[in-house]
């Protein structure tokens, strides 16, 4: 999808909400999977996706296209929706598959077996919310640093630096104690 064509589509949808359908249909699947990876429940995900697109539609006239990917803006809204939903819960459990953490395991030379994955899950659970989000965006959602930055409201360099720091922190959590 060329950026210029998408810019036109966004502007056109901002002027006439009926044209938002093109963007809705294009990004529905990605936003659905993004939320499902965190909620683990299809029905709940369907509701949150609907809410995400509704908020996007209402906010679209104020959206400023600066050449950044549109999906990152949608992911940012989706994360806010999830946070609002999680506020009512006492505990949030994120279920990840071996495939989803493959890239992250390679960073630490971990094997995709039960022992190593349990260690990784324990280490991830020790991270604070912001750092946990960062790792998920980069490794489970496969976003670029530019997109990670846009979702979290920081610059690309800051996203890169924070990711490296978080990986270092995870490494210390994973290191066997003497």
């Amino acid at each position, binding site marked *: 999808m060329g950026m210029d064509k998408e810019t036109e589509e966004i502007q056109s949808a901002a002027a006439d909400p009926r044209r938002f359908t093109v963007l809705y249909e294009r990004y529905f699947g990605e936003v659905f999977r993004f939320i499902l990876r965190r909620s683990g429940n299809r029905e709940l995900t369907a509701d949150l996706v609907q809410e995400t697109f509704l908020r996007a539609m209402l906010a679209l006239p104020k959206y400023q296209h600066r050449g950044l990917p549109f999906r990152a803006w949608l992911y940012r809204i989706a994360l806010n929706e999830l946070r609002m939903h999680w506020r009512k819960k006492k505990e949030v*459990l994120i279920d990840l598959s071996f495939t989803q953490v493959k890239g992250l395991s390679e960073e630490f030379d971990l094997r995709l077996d039960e022992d190593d994955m349990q260690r990784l899950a324990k280490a991830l659970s020790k991270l604070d919310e912001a750092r946990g989000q960062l790792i998920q965006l980069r490794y489970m959602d496969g976003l670029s640093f530019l997109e990670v930055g846009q979702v979290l409201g920081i610059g690309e360099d800051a996203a890169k630096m924070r990711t490296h720091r978080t990986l270092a922190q995870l490494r210390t959590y994973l290191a066997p104690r003497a």
Partner: protein
Amino acid sequence: MKPRFRITPQGAGHEPSDSELLRYRDSGKLSYNYQRGRDLLHRRPLYRDPKAFLALLLIVLLAWLISEGVLDGRKDPEPKPPAQGTP
């Protein structure tokens, strides 16, 4: 909210297929919710509606008058008759 992570071979289950996604996609519902959301956002506030504003002002004025009347009543209690024949 700080999440807890669990890593299992399957995770939260299989990724949704395209046909499953189609089942959840509903642009009609989105348009309907958008209309409702927009109407709520652009609803004229009460203070900009002259009739509603006047009615509100009248209620506030009445409430003020009643409260003043009650307060005045409390400030000037009826004088007690002087006590007679006390030893």
